[in-house]
């Protein structure tokens, strides 16, 4: 439980994106359709096919402060509202001050510029209301409870972490390190900035099967394969995520800020049920680095992966389809 030593607003700031435009190398601006951002997903997708080379994106913002922020008898003064864009991959922090729409208004608006060269994937956008409280300047009195994600490459404004899927010939790929795996239909590389599933196009028909929408039995097999791959991926990313944890001075592991953190928060409730995420992570870390208990945990890791991959359902679907085929053959 947390405790602040000063008065704050107990409700969060509401944040909406209102427009997005790209500044192009020829210094013109391209106003993107509002379909470039999604309010329910709190995501802006800046990946547009026509303009790979945009310089910066201007994102129009509108923030709504909770009631009480601008009361004349509020216990603070010098209220300001800042939008802060952060990116853990590139250590970028861009801040812009929003302007109050009208005196006494709860609505504040402005625009933040996102530099293309400063981001590789996703950046987080938050809004902080800052004021002088009890003579202390710069106090955060409330903020957004969920960040917006500014995805500089995605074409669809979807929240959540998406892993990368690449199809390539393992024997002919420029990635020569894949050659030893020529016998495998797929491998998972969880060492990069984002985990990648490499699909081996050398396995004939495999790629078609994955991409196909043929229906019937083929579809069921497709499903089953996908869930098999997904099980592998989830297992791999989990191990990769717990493998390289930072540790606090008191020895507690810290949730990584990148995809590893997201994977852990997603899977830990199944790996170590009944514990808070932080405690669960501590336990997993202790088992991995300690003397005992790591092997015993593998069953649970596998269970967590299988659940996420929807293996049970896709298996059931195949079985049902098989039964049907058998019946048809007999009749």
């Amino acid at each position: 439980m947390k405790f602040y030593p000063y008065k704050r607003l107990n409700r969060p700031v509401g944040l909406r994106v209102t427009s997005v435009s790209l500044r192009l190398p020829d210094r013109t601006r391209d106003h993107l359709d509002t379909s470039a951002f999604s309010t329910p997903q709190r995501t802006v997708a800046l990946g547009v096919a026509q303009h790979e080379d945009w310089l910066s994106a201007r994102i129009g913002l509108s923030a709504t402060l909770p009631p009480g922020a601008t009361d004349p008898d509020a216990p603070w003064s010098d209220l300001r509202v800042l939008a802060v864009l952060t990116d853990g991959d590139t250590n970028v922090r861009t801040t812009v001050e929003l302007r109050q729409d009208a005196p006494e208004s709860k609505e504040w608006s402005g625009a933040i510029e996102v530099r293309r060269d400063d981001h590789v994937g996703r950046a987080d956008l938050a809004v902080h209301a800052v004021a002088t409280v009890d003579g202390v300047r710069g106090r955060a009195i409330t903020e957004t409870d969920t960040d917006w994600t500014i995805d500089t490459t995605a074409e669809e404004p979807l929240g959540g972490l998406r892993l990368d899927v690449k199809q390539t010939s393992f024997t002919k790929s420029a990635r020569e390190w894949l050659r030893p795996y020529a016998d495998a239909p797929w491998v998972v590389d969880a060492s990069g900035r984002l985990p990648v599933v490499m699909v081996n196009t050398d396995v004939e028909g495999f790629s078609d099967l994955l991409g196909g929408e043929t229906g019937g039995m083929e579809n069921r097999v497709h499903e089953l394969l996908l869930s098999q791959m997904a099980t592998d991926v989830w297992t791999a990313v989990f191990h990769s995520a717990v493998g390289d944890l930072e540790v606090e001075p008191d020895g507690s592991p810290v949730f990584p800020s990148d995809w590893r953190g997201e994977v852990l928060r997603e899977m830990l409730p199944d790996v170590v049920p009944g514990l808070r995420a932080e405690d669960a992570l501590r336990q997993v870390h202790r088992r991995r680095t300690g003397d005992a208990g790591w092997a015993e945990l593998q069953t649970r890791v596998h269970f967590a992966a299988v659940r996420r991959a929807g293996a049970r359902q896709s298996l059931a679907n195949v079985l049902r389809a098989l039964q049907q085929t058998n019946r048809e053959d007999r009749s």
Partner: protein
Amino acid sequence: MEAGEEFGPWLARQLRLANKTQAELAEELGLTRAAVSAWITKRSVPRPTVMGEIAKALGTDLGTVHTRTTDTQAGLPVTWYHRPGYQDGGRDGGNAAAFAFDADVQVLARETCQNSLDERLVENGRPVRVRYTIHELTGEKLEAFRAALLWDELQPHYSAVSESAADQKVGRVVDAGVRDMFEKGRLVLLRIDDYNASGLTGDDYDDGKFAAVVRRQLESLKSGRGAGGSYGLGKATLWATSALGMVLINSTLSVPHEGRTERRVIGRLELPWRSVDGIPYAGPAWLGRPDPETHNAEVVRSWWADEETVERLHLTRDNDEPGTSFLIVGAHDVASLEQGGTDSDDEEGNASDGDGIRDIRVMHRRLVEALGRDFWAAMTGGGSRLPLLETSVRTYRNGEIVLEEETVDPTDIQPSRSRALRAFYEGTTVDRLTEAGQVALRAVPLKLPLFGGRSGTLGTHQGVLLVTEAEDKDGVPNQVHSLRGNRMTIKKSTVHGLPLGVTQFQAVLLVGHAAGESAPFAGEAEEFLRAAEPPEHDRWGQTEELTLRWSHSAHNRISRLTTEVNAAVKELVVRPKRPGSEESAKLRKKLTVQRKTAAVKRGSGPTVPELVELDAEIGESKEWRITAEVKLPRADELPAMTPVVLLEVRSGGRPRLDWAELVAVEGCEVEGGVLHFEQGARRAVFRGATDPTSHPVRTELTRLALELRAGSGE
């Protein structure tokens, strides 16, 4: 002074009302019959001196004879006329139309406003104003109203119907209505006034708006929209909303009838077949003045009432603007009970007053809701364009205001749709949506078929599709509301197959006359869609009329329009995909770590001790002093826990503070910084103070975090 009727026709009617012949009047005046006949046939007028004699003979004053704006009180008084039973003894069971569905003020709002829109006086360009007044009467006010209604004449009829309550639904409804009035001592009047509308013009019996509403009930239901004029099935909802089956009407006409316009009054009652004192009655009854021209002068017709009478009947209109007031006597809203789930019968013992207030407040709210939902478009103007309709709702109790008059504001109830329509009127729409709050416009084609089943296309009408970002108040998101000339939402359809993450929108499709004056084939499209509209006005599709006038496949044109609309919507709100990006989409979906929105789900109770309460303050020597409460699970053995006090940081590892003091208060013991909980305890409280010399920064600049860790906390 009002323009009076011509003397001749007026005198003729007064004689009929008084049941006097021309000869009798001539005799009383000491004149020849030919002289009276000359007045009536408008060949001459009486000399001023004779006027006084005529007034005396008709039992009225000189003023009335001069102005001729009302009828004399001579003759038969206003009364109820009950249609006698059929000769063949048939018992149709009352008006099926009126009792076909449950009372629902939202349906009533829809139907009555629709009628008012159709009856709007278009020449002056002003909107038709429709006002709903809910008025609950109790005590003396109720008594007075019942007296004005001539309740005593009706009482035997209601008793007869109540006796049949066990057999038929109508009887049960009426019985409940009467009991409500007497046992709870209350009666709810719901009045619907329209202004700047045509009013109930035309003769009492011939074709015309008056007859369509007051006389033809069953007929209009049977023959659909054609014969019923503007008032189709809809008017039945007026009677359906009355638990007593009673509606009183006061109309100001836009076209004079019998030389008059104001206070044309009549009442109509819908009851099932009944037998009173051995005489069978067919069902309906009318409140009016007996018509001397009918058999036995029994049938009653509308009368031109004086101001006092309309006042007593709660029918007074605001001014002389044309339009009609319908007063639903004993209004009830069965639909709201289904929604609200409160059964008032169970609470009979309770003070019924509070209950009644609740009823009328709910009715008020539901009316406002329905008006906003169904007529936001008609109520929206923009640019040089006035709205077609203004509506308001107000609620009284015994003449005292319960809820102030509330003007229904479409921008409040349907913010995004009304914004879309206003932008269209003002010409501020855009081609692509690039900013929140913008309205995008797309033309969508409706290919109209040729008449009479011939294949081919008559022409292509360009409908107008408006799309804008949704707001919370609009209700179900991602919908297209389709409207034609009358601006009523006919069709609501949800756009399916949208990808995850599409920002919610609302769309409006304007077709027919709604698409604007310049839209090609607007009239033809309007006609086509009207034909494709069922009496419920809630969709466009296959109808009998469509099949007869066009063809069996004509409705496919509407399906094609829907396809076009959905495609256009998607083009506006969905991010186009790069070719080939569909590949592996399924796999990607399976591999997506969804963002956590909800808190971690909890089971039936805590399985480990859990911090539930933290109170903290900064002490005198700048130490953090905390009091914390722990909720304990029901377990035989409770694990020892270590309270760990940390400071939050911007990023990275959090510094852990030292305890200067850690004391058990309740349900636990402290031993070497570890909490041991008492067996069977459900909660534990402990206090503590940090060692201020372990703080990495001034205490007032820190944010405290307290955690419980298992065991010794390492």
